[in-house]
């Protein structure tokens, strides 16, 4: 899906029209892809600056950023540091704390001393100091789509985002597909009329977590695109501040050629069930307290062992994991077909998590516990504010 603020749609009377990217936008698509290609080995912040310059070409910034957003799953960002950034920072700050203010010559001396202490070069200290910031992560790999494919991916993501604001959906397609019916049932109360054409009328449950809803809509639409003569007519409450829903209609006849689900994401989930990287002896992710108890060590000892690993781990508050694993788990969880805790636990266990619940919390989810464990539900918490 696209970030909601990047949705381009026009409301007219009772209808809502998504502003899809047509062939005229191929030039912009080529530019955005080129910016990403040229940003390999550069930081996320530099990529973002380069994209801002595309906005200055006179294009709608929502389109530029939307086109960039759909490329995100095709990018691999990694943080690079010779020494663990928190260790570098602590060393630098402690050394500098004795001075009233650090002047440029003091700084050179302190960086050199810390570098010598850590057994690395001064340049490595500079590079490592804040290498763990999101905007400092380097784009190490980018798998570009063709510009035509790029526009279809954008249109698809835009459709998913708009449909995710539906209050009601009328879905039609030829033949029967149990999977579509099941996914529709996960969205709300669904009535199915089977026949030559299957008609599913879904009254959606109130929107609680947009990302969870969007994951289901994504699965539904991807499946629907593979059927014959599909149509969707949805009552969409977008933007959310307008309470009166508007009609949003899509059909294979008109929109079939302009939408495409990104196979890359789905491919990645399948591939990464068998982790590519060699697992560390502690595993990845590491739930600190659980590991400490299991191995009879202190949390600090576990952390020291992690620091000695070749792979750098991110500290997510009680859970440490590699950036690669973080991406892998985030992607895998997007594929959850319902919000039951068991479903999420199953996915995480399939991806090597011994103790899924703390990992869920670390990834920004929360659990609504029910007395019967089968009834417990998972929610996605908004933003990062919960830890601020």
């Amino acid at each position, binding site marked *: 899906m696209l970030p909601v603020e990047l949705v381009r749609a026009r409301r007219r009377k009772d209808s809502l029209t998504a502003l899809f990217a047509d062939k005229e936008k191929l030039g912009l698509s080529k530019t955005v892809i080129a910016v990403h290609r040229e940003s390999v080995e550069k930081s996320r912040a530099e990529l973002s600056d380069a994209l801002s310059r595309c*906005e200055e070409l*006179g294009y*709608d*910034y*929502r389109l530029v950023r939307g086109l960039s957003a759909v490329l995100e799953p095709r990018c691999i960002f990694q943080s690079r540091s010779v020494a663990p950034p*928190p260790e570098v*920072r*602590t060393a*630098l*700050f*402690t*050394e*500098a*704390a004795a001075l*009233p*203010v*650090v*002047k440029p010559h003091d*700084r050179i001396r*302190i960086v050199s001393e810390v570098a010598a202490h850590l057994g690395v070069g001064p340049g490595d200290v500079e590079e490592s*100091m*804040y290498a763990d*910031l*999101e905007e400092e992560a380097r784009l190490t790999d980018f798998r570009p789509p063709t510009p035509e494919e790029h526009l279809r991916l954008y249109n698809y993501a835009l459709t998913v985002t708009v449909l995710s604001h539906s209050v009601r959906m009328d879905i039609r397609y030829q033949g029967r597909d149990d999977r579509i019916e099941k996914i529709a049932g996960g969205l709300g109360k669904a009535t199915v009329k089977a026949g030559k054409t299957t008609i599913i009328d879904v009254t959606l449950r109130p929107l609680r977590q947009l990302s969870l809803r969007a994951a289901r809509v994504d699965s539904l639409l991807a499946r629907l695109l593979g059927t014959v003569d599909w149509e969707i007519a949805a009552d969409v409450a977008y933007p959310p501040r307008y309470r009166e829903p508007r009609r949003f209609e899509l059909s294979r006849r008109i929109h079939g050629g302009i939408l495409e689900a990104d196979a890359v994401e789905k491919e990645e989930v399948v591939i990464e069930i068998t982790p590519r990287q060699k697992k560390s002896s502690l595993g990845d992710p590491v739930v600190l307290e659980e590991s400490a108890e299991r191995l009879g060590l202190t949390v600090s000892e576990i952390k020291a062992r992690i620091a000695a690993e070749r792979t750098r781990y991110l*500290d*997510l*508050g*009680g859970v440490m994991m590699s950036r690669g694993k973080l991406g892998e788990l985030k992607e895998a969880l997007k594929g959850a077909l319902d919000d039951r805790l068991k479903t999420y636990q199953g996915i995480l266990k399939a991806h090597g998590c011994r103790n899924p*619940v*703390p990992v869920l*919390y*670390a990834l920004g989810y*929360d*659990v*609504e*516990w*029910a007395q019967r464990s089968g009834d417990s539900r998972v*929610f996605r*918490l*908004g933003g*990062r*504010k*919960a*830890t*601020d």
Partner: protein
Amino acid sequence: MITVRFDGGSVVVEGGEVFLGSSVIPAYRYSEVLERLREAGAEFRDEASESPLCPHLESSYEPRDYQSEAVEAWARAGCRGVVVLPTGAGKTVVAIKAMERLQASTLVVVPTLVLVEQWRETLQSAFKIPVGSLGGGSEDIRPVTVSTYDSAALRAGSLGNRFKLIVFDEVHHLPAQTNRRIATGYTAPYRLGLTATLSEDEEALVDLADLVGAVVYEKAVEELAGRHLSGYTVRTVQIPLAPEERAEYERQYSIYRGFLQRRGLRIRSPRDYLRFVQSSGVDPEARRALLARNAAMDLALNSGAKIQYLSRLLESNPASKTIIFTRHNKLVYRISREFLIPSITHQTGREEREEILSKFRDGTYRRIVTSQVLDEGVDVPDASMAVILSGTGSSREFIQRLGRILRKREGKEAVLFELVSQDTAETRMSRRRKGA
């Protein structure tokens, strides 16, 4: 017979009516439901509340006079209402004394995980009982529990009838749409809101009065400074932009000003500005104007001249424990890199943040640079100097930042430096935040 039940954030009245418009009523009107039933002389069975027995709550805290007055005022208002006290004035003690008075199961709701830990430790040490916590992976519900706003909202359906008292720390967060669920989905008849800065938005105030109660007690910083809080000085320093920064500022700002003039627009209120920002989504010229304004403000807020002044300020106050505030993280990291000062932003992990605060507390570090994370709540004792390099026009933000340096210590005179780029739009922002 009428039965009153709790059902997933609502109170359900079965077998009769209570004249509140529906038989399914938001949980926060639970006491009103009971009151109506009693008034009507109806026979009813109350199955809604399931609050556990609470251990005896007694602490050795000696409240200051204004803290006692606040608790009295709150009790007089039926144990509902909001207490407004400056940061560092001991709002936690007010909550502890209110809990002692009620001797009832209590949920304390706070905005961040850091505050969950702080409150839990304080309450455990005050009452010598185990205190539960909810949020950030913890799921320990006890008669006295501390929760984040997020977790309390998510669990309203299952925990909404378990507590008699809810304490809302930083209660100004409550009217936000998701947080409202806590106030409306819990039956707790007794409610205490704590804040240093209430919103000036009347709608939000009316909302708070309905959800928690009216403001029952209020003391401003000036009323407590000197005796209960440190004495303080605010020094606003106007710093000219460097010539090249000034030229670029004028160039960018004139693009913005030109757009407003051409369109006959005037930005007189936050609402006007919001409309302008919204129009930039569909109007490329407005978008260019917005970007130009942002670029100009970026220069004013993050000017090189301010950094030079900061350097001199730190050099001339070597012993002062100092918190440096900025508006954007970019400047936090610039200062941290340049002066090797520990930084705290939303990206700082919990462990690292605790380590930095702990070293700041014990004097290993004497400076911290932060954006908006330390604006409220986090217990940062004994800082005596604050430098606002940049901020918003919000008076709440200003008061919260000032509050960081007001904890009383013998002989301490706190000083807040506000660095403002001269003859730029930032000067208006500075006046607005100080209510001038």
